[in-house]
């Protein structure tokens, strides 16, 4: 059975949601890894969960990225291991340099907590989207105050050229427009991957949408894709 690590920083608050979703909804093995650890110990994938690591001091994710375990996560990612950063986890991966760009406060300055629609923009698969089809939309929640993704024109062009823009905010019909952009993110970007495609960062929370009683189970396809890649089923 494939095994995932959920990294826990002081201030992580979606670690248990991720653990529960992966273990009980999807059926993979999972363990928590405290940020002071210096080894990941034979895991097949890493989840960097949401929250407010180190109270968002200095910048979101800026201090967590220097936690001892992050060196291991970087090494794991460079070797091709599947890594997903969700919300604050995405911010940490940006600060760690595993993904390009940076995160600004939401344009409207409000914390946004609501359901959004996402469109799979990328044509090329990632370990987290292999069961999805390009253009497919899913409905999962966001909950963040700093999800306004920014990057230089040059970086944005590279992201486009390499098919690294994985998710964009859209309406229920999959149409992309400024009106459905919840935070001011350039190009309605909700999630991107690295050039090797094994590292995904996304602001919306698939782990909070794995059971219909939570309003949506559309997030399951992200973890089911991972399971399918890792277990070859």
């Amino acid at each position: 059975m494939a095994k995932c690590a959920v990294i826990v920083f002081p201030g992580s608050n979606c670690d248990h949601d991720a653990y529960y979703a992966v273990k009980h909804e999807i059926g993979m093995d999972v363990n928590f890894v405290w940020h002071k650890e210096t080894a990941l110990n034979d895991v097949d994938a890493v989840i960097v969960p949401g929250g407010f690591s180190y109270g968002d001091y200095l910048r979101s994710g800026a201090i967590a990225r220097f936690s001892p375990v992050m060196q291991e996560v970087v090494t794991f990612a460079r070797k091709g291991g599947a890594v997903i950063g969700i919300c604050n986890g995405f911010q940490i991966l940006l600060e760690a340099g595993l993904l390009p760009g940076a995160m600004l406060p939401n344009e409207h300055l409000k914390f946004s907590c609501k359901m959004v629609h996402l469109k799979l923009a990328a044509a090329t698969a990632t370990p987290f989207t292999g069961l999805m089809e390009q253009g497919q939309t899913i409905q999962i929640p966001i909950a963040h105050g700093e999800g306004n993704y920014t990057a230089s024109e040059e970086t944005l062009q590279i992201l486009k050229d390499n098919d690294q823009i994985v998710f964009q905010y859209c309406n229920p019909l999959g149409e992309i427009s400024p009106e459905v952009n919840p935070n001011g993110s350039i190009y309605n970007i909700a999630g991107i991957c690295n050039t090797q495609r094994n590292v995904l960062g996304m602001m919306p929370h698939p782990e909070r949408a794995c059971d219909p009683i939570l309003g949506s189970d559309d997030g399951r396809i992200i973890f089911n894709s991972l399971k399918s890649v890792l277990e070859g089923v």
Partner: protein
Amino acid sequence: MFKARVYVTLKPSILDPKGKAAQGALHNLGYHKIKSVRIGKMIELDIEADTAAEAKVAAEMASRKLLANEVMEDFEVEITKELHHG
């Protein structure tokens, strides 16, 4: 020992929603002559070093590594004074 100040500011190309909100509030208060507000942060460091130049290098390294994110921020280091123990 030297005291350094690191000024971290958003790059000019980056929108500053907090600055914009503050500017709006200033306009509401009647300060119409204030045409732009950009918010950054100032970080004070006490640095063990023999010379001001050495302290500056240390502060710049700290800024590059952690205090500023050069994807969206610029920084400037100023050595403000030499600290004496006694």
